[in-house]
């Protein structure tokens, strides 16, 4: 038998057999590829269907949408108590801020958002000025708007602040303080000088090794002891100091990761060009390190945002804290009130954090595409 063979005519390009590709094929392969798999699919579909239906039923179908007090929500078989949310929502956002002055937190937020949006978009330039504004100028402006006392604005004590305002203030201030401190610590950790290196490592490991709750207690109770007799730091500031120190340790680790990811050749090139060590670090290595660390830094911010809820243990009313406090209102005492409150809280936090984590993912992908330039 001759083994020689030459194809005379091309075999036709055919579509795959029915049921192996396209929608049916996908179903077969991914959901029903075997008996066990099919059973699993059915079981999971039932579970998810039941859960989804329960939530929909409770929140929408059986939900109470109008009313003025608990009477509306205490009826039989009631679902979510939405009138409770409608009434309390402004308080959840502004806390006990005087109603007439509420334009001030709103303005502060709008300025921040306006400055943040161009910062987040990769194409827009002048990032350095943008960052400087956000990190240095904006906090001062926002603080002035919120606290008042200058420019004819009435003073509003920090004890009146509450709700989402406090959450944002604490989280943003935390990041603003922890970022420069974290960079310094990361650089200190890389240093060749033994004392600076050990001090940095000790500082970082200290804050990373203890729970945030203890840090908040520490800031709340110990800080007044450390300060000279006349000086006092108000409760919110103490919490922010504690949170910032705590976050700076994690920030230091994120920046350290970025520093290590910058190729060694960059430092060598800088030194070869005649720049001093400090100049090389500041102008060549650090910018690249920070860019690489952005996904991790956003991650830390997300963590901070969630961790603001812990200020409850030192009696500061953040978003969760004020919702929790509102549940005690006897005007709305009904079985579903607490469930509704927690549901809305979970929804709000989820939307914020999910959006931020998607952004972090987006920057990470962009970095990979850019080849970490």
């Amino acid at each position, binding site marked *: 038998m001759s*083994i*020689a*063979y*030459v*194809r005379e005519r*091309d*075999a*036709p*390009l*055919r*579509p*795959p*057999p029915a049921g*192996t*590709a*396209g929608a049916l*094929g996908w179903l077969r392969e991914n959901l029903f590829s075997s008996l066990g798999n099919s059973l699993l699919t059915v079981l999971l579909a039932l579970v998810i269907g039941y859960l989804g239906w329960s939530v929909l039923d409770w929140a929408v179908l059986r939900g109470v949408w109008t009313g003025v007090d608990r009477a509306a929500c205490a009826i039989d078989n009631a679902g979510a108590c939405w009138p409770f949310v409608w009434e309390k929502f402004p308080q959840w956002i502004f806390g006990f801020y005087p109603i007439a002055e509420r334009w001030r937190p709103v303005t502060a937020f709008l300025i921040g958002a306006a400055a943040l949006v161009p910062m987040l978009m990769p194409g827009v330039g002048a990032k350095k000025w943008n960052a400087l504004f956000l990190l240095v100028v904006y906090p001062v402006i926002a603080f002035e708007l919120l606290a008042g006392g200058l420019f004819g604005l009435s003073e509003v004590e920090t004890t009146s602040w509450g709700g989402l305002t406090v959450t944002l203030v604490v989280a943003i201030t935390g990041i603003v303080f922890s970022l420069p401190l974290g960079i310094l610590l990361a650089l200190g950790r890389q240093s060749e000088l033994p004392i600076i290196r050990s001090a940095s490592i000790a500082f970082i490991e200290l804050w990373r090794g203890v729970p945030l709750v203890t840090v908040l207690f520490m800031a709340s109770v110990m800080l007044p002891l450390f300060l000279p007799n006349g000086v006092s730091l108000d409760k919110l500031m103490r919490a922010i100091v504690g949170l910032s120190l705590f976050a700076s340790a994690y920030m230091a680790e994120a920046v350290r990761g970025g520093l290590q990811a910058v190729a060694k050749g960059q430092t060598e090139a800088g030194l070869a060009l005649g720049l001093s060590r400090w100049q090389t670090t500041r102008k060549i290595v650090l910018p690249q390190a920070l860019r690489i660390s952005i996904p991790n830094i956003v991650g830390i911010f997300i963590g901070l945002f969630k961790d603001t809820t812990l200020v409850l243990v030192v009696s500061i009313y953040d978003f969760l804290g004020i919702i929790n406090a509102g549940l005690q209102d006897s005007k709305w005492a009904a079985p579903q009130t607490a469930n509704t409150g927690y549901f809305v809280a979970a929804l709000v936090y989820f939307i914020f954090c999910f959006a931020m984590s998607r952004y972090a993912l987006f920057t990470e992908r962009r970095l990979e595409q850019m080849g970490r330039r």
Partner: protein
Amino acid sequence: MPQTAVQFIGVNKWFGSFHVLRDINLDVAQGERIVICGPSGSGKSTLIRCINRLEQHQEGRIIVDGIEINDDVKAIEEVRRDVGMVFQHFNLFPHLTVLENCTLAPIWVRKMPKREADALAMKFLERVRIPEQAHKYPGQLSGGQQQRVAIARALCMTPKIMLFDEPTSALDPEMVKEVLDTMVTLASEGMTMLVVTHEMGFARQVADRVIFMDQGQIVEMNAPEAFFGNPRNERTRLFLSQILR
């Protein structure tokens, strides 16, 4: 024992809606050495990976050593015991020593006692000429050494058929020769081999048949002298002119 080692009858395969293997008909005899070449994306790797069910075919029949390959798990396991495979990127197990790499399958699949498996492994490591590396880890060896270990590892299962998926493509040039020499030795001992490669010198030296694949089809096959000397299909000629400068 059947005379035909591997049989492809009207085999078609799709990746999603992409028709990657078209109307493959092929008979490989016992002891035959086949080299498969062709441009990238022509389906050569997919073809040999269908033989040990690393890829599934949707149409047609594949019969290996008398066993038909389908969804039957037992049949697949039996086929895999008799078919050895060497990969482009070696795929040695980095957490095991060279010796352990070779004895893993004999111990756990053929239920061989450890002493016997060790002796078997040393025998094959000597055959590929690196017995002194037996207690090193793959990460400590060069690429050429790793690939030779991979060959020994496959041989330790005493397969009847050996598949090679571009065994030298990932190697630095100076190491290609040591691996090819090993394969030549193997061929001279009568092993049935299907080799996907660009090394035409090897094909000329060792192959009983050279197959050219393009766009999922077998376009031409012939004995090496006829194949290289007198390619009959236009596409074959084009391909050969590109790789044999």
